[in-house]
């Protein structure tokens, strides 16, 4: 059994070696080593996906297998959901390394080392089966993420972004650790399976379990940019170097969501089973608020990277809705959606990086019409916008279809409406900015004087900017094409649903980990009929296009313009005013969010 620890261990050892000898190696060798490492991690993760198809792989570090049903050591519990996510992570890291081939001309090996440690932390989060180990990888991911976010420390923007990122995430991590301590205090176990079994057998009663659950996941909610913990994300993503943004938006945020879902199903599902409706309502509330706030904020941005960051927030909301259905098919739909979104968002950020490379700006108004030189990048951006809208054949379409189907069967039809809202607002924003940049449509100056921040950016590259190197547009093309291709094969969708069934089978996993009992076969999975849903993306794209056109050509609204603009501003202003850019405010919102969601759980559980 060689492979399970390697996705974490290989990048760590390579990172250490790069720091030790990297200064004596030429830049290209560093790039090659880094790419080779990411590629081999990708290959190993793909192998793990295949190997865990039948039964989850349980790997006990140090050979400390459970004695008398008691887990002494740390284990990896690798199922298809975790391994698949780790594969997505390593694929995006590979894309980021390719993209940064022409980037950061002056860097030494530290950039590569930080990225590899970041990769190791994310893989560890995907695969682990231990509460404290999850916290350790979470912290490793955050620490390397902060360092990467502030990488361009000669500018001010990255510094503030990294500071807000660090403070919010650190606070969240401490609260998570508090939750872990509470779990340990009540059952004396850190292993997921052990804690789940003990909590089920000795429920401490009262509100202890729901509160511990909330504390544990609050760190992950911060990472997942759930409302009202989301403020840091837009600040950090807007200013981080582009290759880092690919990872931040493509997978890091989703990993927060994954960790929350994983902790719920691995540890808390049985003790909280009697009140699953309350837990579901919590996730649905978070999801709805996050979709709306992220979508509206996204539409009101002019800075392309920041716009994409808010779109990520909105789409995370969709995934929260999927998790909130608390069902296997909802979770499977979320997995498909996550896959599609990660790839599309990675591709879109690369497009932003290409613009930054060519024109030293990602500002909507500064770039007005300049994109005419870059029709292919524009096409990729258009495709990305369609992917955000959930157009077939993008994976987001199939994921959304699955989620809508699952929601309908749970009597929560309104959920699909909220999901459509996210698609409309975010793709409208991308279409609008694309129309302005690549077609030169619309005004050259902001129509509204109360405009969104135009964060000064410096180019990340030196030298000639006359052309776009292949290492930049090829990854973007590959990612967006991948997002289209991946879910076309029904086998991928079936695998996602089966993985979700496995993840949801708490009791089966617990016995499998502690006793080695094989898990029961996965029941027949139900793929939602996709073609009947075709009207949704059509409506999405039509609404998005109308909205984008209205924003580009407000005069076409004629007499109604003043009233419309006025109404929209009234709606948007409070949200914009919330986002003050001050870390003290963010922390206050964080505490309020924890308090309110905690109150929700406490009052819900009394029923």
């Amino acid at each position: 059994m060689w492979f399970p620890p390697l996705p974490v261990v290989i990048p760590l050892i390579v990172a250490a070696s790069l720091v030790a000898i990297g200064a004596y190696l030429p830049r290209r060798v560093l790039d090659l080593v880094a790419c080779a490492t990411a590629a081999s991690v990708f290959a190993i993760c793909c192998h793990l996906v295949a190997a865990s198809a039948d039964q989850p792989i349980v790997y006990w570090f140090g050979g400390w297998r459970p004695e008398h049903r008691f887990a002494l050591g740390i284990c990896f519990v690798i199922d298809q959901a975790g391994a698949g996510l780790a594969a997505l992570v390593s694929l995006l890291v590979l894309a980021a390394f390719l993209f940064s081939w022409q980037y950061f001309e002056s860097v030494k090996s530290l950039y590569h080392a930080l990225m590899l440690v970041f990769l190791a932390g994310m893989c560890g989060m995907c695969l682990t089966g231990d509460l404290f180990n999850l916290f350790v990888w979470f912290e490793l991911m955050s620490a390397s993420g902060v360092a990467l976010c502030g990488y361009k420390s000669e500018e001010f923007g990255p510094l503030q972004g990294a500071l807000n990122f660090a403070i919010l995430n650190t606070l969240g991590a401490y609260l998570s650790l508090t939750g872990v301590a509470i779990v340990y205090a009540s059952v004396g176990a850190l292993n997921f399976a052990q804690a789940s079994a003990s909590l089920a057998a000795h429920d401490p009663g009262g509100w202890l379990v729901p509160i511990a659950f909330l504390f544990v996941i609050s760190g992950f909610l911060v990472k997942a940019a759930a409302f009202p913990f989301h403020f840091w994300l837009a600040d950090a993503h807007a200013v981080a170097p582009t290759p880092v943004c690919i990872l931040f938006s493509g997978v890091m945020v989703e990993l927060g969501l994954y960790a929350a879902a994983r902790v719920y199903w691995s540890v808390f599902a049985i003790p909280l089973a009697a009140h699953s409706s309350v837990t579901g309502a919590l996730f649905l509330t978070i999801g709805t608020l996050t979709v709306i706030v992220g979508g509206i904020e996204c539409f009101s941005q002019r800075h392309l990277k920041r716009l994409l960051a808010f779109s990520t927030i909105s789409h995370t909301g969709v995934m929260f809705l999927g998790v909130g259905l608390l069902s296997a098919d909802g979770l499977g739909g979320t997995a498909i959606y996550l896959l599609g979104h990660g790839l599309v968002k990675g591709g879109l950020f690369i497009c932003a990086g290409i613009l930054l490379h060519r024109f030293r700006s990602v500002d909507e108004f500064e770039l007005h019409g300049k994109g005419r030189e870059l029709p292919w990048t524009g096409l990729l951006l258009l495709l990305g916008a369609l992917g955000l809208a959930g157009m077939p054949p993008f994976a987001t379409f199939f994921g959304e279809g699955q989620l809508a189907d699952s929601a309908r069967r749970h009597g929560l039809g309104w959920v699909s409406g909220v999901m459509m809202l996210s698609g409309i607002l975010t793709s409208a924003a991308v279409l609008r900015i694309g129309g302005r940049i690549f077609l030169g449509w619309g005004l050259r100056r902001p129509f509204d004087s109360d405009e969104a921040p135009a964060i000064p950016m410096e180019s990340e590259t030196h030298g000639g900017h006359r052309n776009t190197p292949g290492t930049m547009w090829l990854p973007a093309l590959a990612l967006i094409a991948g997002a289209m291709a991946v879910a076309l094969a029904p086998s991928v969708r079936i695998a996602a649903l089966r993985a979700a069934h496995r993840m949801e089978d708490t009791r089966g996993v617990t016995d499998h980990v502690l006793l080695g009992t094989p898990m029961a076969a996965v029941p027949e999975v139900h793929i939602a009929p996709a073609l009947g849903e075709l009207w949704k993306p059509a409506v999405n794209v039509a609404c998005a296009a109308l909205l984008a056109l209205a924003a580009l050509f407000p005069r076409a609204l004629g007499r109604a313009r003043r009233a419309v603009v006025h109404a929209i501003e009234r709606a948007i202003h409070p949200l914009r005013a919330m986002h003050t850019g001050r870390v003290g405010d963010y922390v206050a919102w964080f505490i309020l969010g924890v308090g309110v969601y905690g109150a929700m759980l406490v009052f819900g559980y009394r029923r």
Partner: protein
Amino acid sequence: MRHPGRMGIFFTGAAAVAALYALSAIRLPGPEDVRGEYMRIINGECVTFRHVTDAVTAVNFDFRGFDTLGEEFILFVSVMGTLVLLRQTDAKPGAWAPDALSPGRAVGASDALRVWILAMTGPTVLFGIYTVIHGQLTPGGGFQGGVILATAPLLLYLAESFDVFRRITSHRYLEIVEAVGAGAYGVIGLLALFRGREFMANIFHLGKGGNDINLFSGGTIPVINAAVGIEVTAGFVLLLYAFLQEMLERKEAGS
């Protein structure tokens, strides 16, 4: 948002969070027999099966050694991140503000005092090394001893000058040492794979008989402990170095 709004939000949330703490406290701690099991097994096994007397070290480097690997790299990546943020790469000697060269000299400390500080360096190093290598027997270990060792060069700076500090703590060299310390941990873990065991399995000789406990018993534990000690020493010296150099940069000092 104006300040009062922020405080309103905070106090509302804080009241609720305080209530959450209180509500969870009334049900804690859980039944003794349930939550004491982990502890009982470890306390019962660490001497007999691992040949170490410090159970905390046994947990850190053996039972839950994989956590410590992650933690090592948290330290590693934070040091690298701090260096990146402060951009300590190519400073040249002589770029320091003259009055900052030595706090000892700057405040006009007598030679006797400076000699005394210098003389303290030796015992500090000895104590640090002692703390590192006795980690498995008595309280202490790679982390604690490493930080103690890292303060030794600082004493040199206090007594002499930053140039002396710099000379014995070459930046490039320290980075290599830190990386080797961190990487060694992973490599020791990998060795077990080549022996056909799980990652991080304790494959070295644990000790003879049941009661053979000394500085070298415990198999991989003392080796990992030493690697951690090296990494922490180098890491903290680098951190102090980065901040010191940042403070002393003449260009910024406005002199």
